[in-house]
């Protein structure tokens, strides 16, 4: 199992070579089996022919003697046949009368006269069934002795088939060696052929980029001209790689624009925020003009002007800051949340929503995180909460810094996130067209900081908690 799993991780060229070697081995086994079984059939046919001739010869020669139970003549015939036989195949022959009593044998010590032939017929087979296939180096053949159709006895002959078995074993070894050589050769050849054929695929894999990396296009001169299918595949890949680059570029621009979108969404509130004090400030200047001789009135009006202008200065500073922060590389601080409040509170006021603002964390804990992304995360979530909460509803921001993390919780009493909004916030699924990118930007920023997002909906309250890991173990 482990080996199989590991096999799956090997380069495809080696896997294909090994697979073709395995198939060759399988083919070799099947072919060898065929060759050996054919050889076995031929050997058996030869052996049966030999046994048949031998037994037929003996039957003709011995029939009359067996009929007359002439022990000497049976022995004499067997003995002379034994000494005259050229091959060594016949090891032993025994002849009995029709009642199974031994008349004579080539080796009378093994089969004494008048003993029972049953000792030899046990594992003997008829001539037509003689085979060297069962691996025994000696096979026994039995045949009836008949004279003019009358059964007069029985012959059992032991044949030495060790040469046939050797032949079969040698053939098997030769096949094994040949197949092993052929398999090795073809596996190596297969490796080189496959490696060559898969070169474009490797090229493709190489340009795909390592895990997580962006694909980059294959240079035109590396695309093979010979294989139109592969060339088309590689060109398609190049087009896809270009499209992916264009898309991520578009996403990047979109994310950048999102910041202005947030500000845009605040613009009317912020315009009111600037416009509202302006009436008072203009009244103050009229008052100064009308009562220039009354120093206490002028001083009061100047104080009023000073307060109004300071507020305007803070608001514009916060807007400028929001526009600028991502490039500053600043660390997060409590001032960032004050800025956010300055920017965001007018929106809640406009919508007559209550804003709960609880920064329960010290600067030291905040400083371990960069300012720009956290501000963007908080602003986007707050804007989302404010638009989700009904007129006169409630929006809250809570910052907590337990051990090692910064928890940023934004809650509202709106109807909760829609499925598509949740998908944008919680998953990497492609953004469905038509929806905003604010929540997806939150997700990407949180992922970029190595944090997690939790969504909780209970008792009519929606709470989204972003947990960001902090360097340094201090807690607030």
């Amino acid at each position, binding site marked *: 199992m482990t080996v199989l799993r590991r096999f799956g991780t090997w380069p495809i060229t080696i896997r294909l070579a090994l697979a073709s070697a395995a198939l060759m081995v399988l083919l070799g086994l099947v072919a060898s089996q065929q060759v050996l079984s054919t050889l076995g059939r031929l050997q058996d046919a030869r052996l049966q022919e030999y046994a048949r001739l031998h037994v037929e010869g003996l039957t003709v020669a011995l029939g009359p003697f067996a009929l007359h139970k*002439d*022990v*000497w003549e049976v*022995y*004499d015939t067997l*003995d*002379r046949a034994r000494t005259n036989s050229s091959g060594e195949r016949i090891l032993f022959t025994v002849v009995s009368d029709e009642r199974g009593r031994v008349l*004579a044998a080539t*080796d*009378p*010590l093994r089969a*004494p*006269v*008048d003993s029972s032939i049953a000792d030899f017929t046990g594992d003997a087979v008829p001539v037509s069934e003689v085979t060297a296939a069962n691996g025994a180096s000696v096979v026994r053949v039995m045949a009836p002795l008949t004279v003019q159709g009358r059964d007069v006895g029985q012959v059992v002959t032991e044949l030495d088939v060790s040469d046939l078995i050797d032949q079969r074993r040698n053939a098997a070894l030769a096949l094994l060696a040949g197949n092993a050589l052929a398999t090795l050769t073809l596996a190596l050849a297969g490796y080189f052929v496959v490696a060559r054929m898969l070169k474009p695929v490797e090229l493709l894999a190489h340009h795909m980029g390592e895990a997580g990396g962006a694909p980059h296009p294959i240079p035109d001169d590396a695309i093979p001209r010979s294989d139109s299918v592969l060339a088309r595949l590689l060109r398609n890949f190049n087009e896809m790689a270009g499209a992916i680059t264009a898309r991520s570029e578009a996403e990047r621009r979109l994310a950048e624009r999102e910041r202005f979108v947030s500000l845009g969404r605040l613009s009317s509130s912020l315009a009111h925020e600037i416009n509202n004090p302006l009436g008072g400030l203009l009244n103050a200047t009229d008052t100064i003009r009308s009562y220039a001789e009354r120093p206490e009135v002028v001083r009061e009006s100047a104080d009023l002007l000073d307060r109004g202008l300071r507020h305007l200065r803070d608001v514009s500073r916060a807007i400028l800051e929001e526009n600028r922060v991502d490039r500053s590389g600043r660390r997060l601080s409590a001032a960032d949340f004050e800025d956010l409040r300055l920017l965001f509170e007018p929106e809640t006021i406009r919508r007559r929503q209550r804003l709960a603002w609880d920064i329960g964390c010290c600067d030291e804990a905040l400083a371990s995180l960069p300012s720009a992304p956290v501000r963007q995360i908080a602003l986007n979530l707050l804007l989302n909460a404010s638009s989700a909460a009904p007129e006169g509803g409630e929006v809250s921001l809570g910052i907590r810094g337990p051990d090692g993390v910064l928890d940023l919780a934004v809650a509202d009493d709106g109807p909760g996130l829609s499925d598509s909004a949740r998908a944008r916030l919680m998953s990497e699924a492609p953004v469905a067209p038509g929806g905003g990118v604010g929540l997806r930007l939150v997700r990407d920023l949180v992922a970029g900081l190595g944090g997690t997002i939790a969504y909780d909906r209970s008792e009519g309250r929606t709470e989204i908690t972003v947990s960001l890991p902090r360097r340094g173990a201090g807690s607030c």
Partner: protein
Amino acid sequence: MDRRRFIAGTAAVGALASPALARGAATFRLGLTPVFLDNDAVVIERLRSAFSEAMGEPVDLIQRRTYQEITASILDGSVDAAWICGYPFLQHRDGLSLLGVPVWRGRPLYQSYLIVREDDAAAGLGDLRGDVHAFSDPDSNSGFLVTASDLARMGEAPERFFARSIFTYGHRNVVRAVAGGLTRSGSVDGYVWETLAVVEPSLTGRTRVVARSEWLGFPPFAARADRAADAELRRFGKVLLGLDATPAGRAALDLLFLDRIAPGDATLFDGIAARMAEAAAR
């Protein structure tokens, strides 16, 4: 000296026997039996040419498988003379006349041997009860009568004493049967066994002699008694007795390990006659 010079199988029997059936007017026919002399072509040819040369006329050697057949051939006239065994000679004593007796190792005598396999522990005939025994021929003295009469002395008969007895119709075959283990024991011509011990020691080496009989008359040459006065037979008798004087005859006798052929005396066979009487009395 090798076995070809002395003995071989029985393959040539048919080829040598067939010319005898077409008898030419001037052809002398001598009967032989493989019981005693196996049909090695060289021995047969040497004997034939030696006799032909000495007789001055063609001599046919007629072989039959058994003593009974060859004895019958003498009696019915289909052979003129034959080399037979002392036992059938005595059985047909009245109808046969003695032409000569071979001399072996200086005497016209031989023994019957009782043999067993070389590794058999038997010490005598009595140890062989209930086993398989090989005789050479029911009409052979050394190959049957001696053992049968020995058994008669023990109050036994071959068919009761042995579990089975077989006839091999050849003394060499008896040695083969015992050496090969087909039978436990055998009755064999001592002259044949001793000769085989010289020319084919690998065969006799696998056997062991457990008993030797007394010296008995060597198998003689005989002819029908009523034809003994025929000129041709008398001439053949002279040729026989002078065989060792001619080079061809000498060569043939050397092949047979015989010294010469001597004039015979029927008393030579008294020992056999005594055994016949013992066997018959049982």
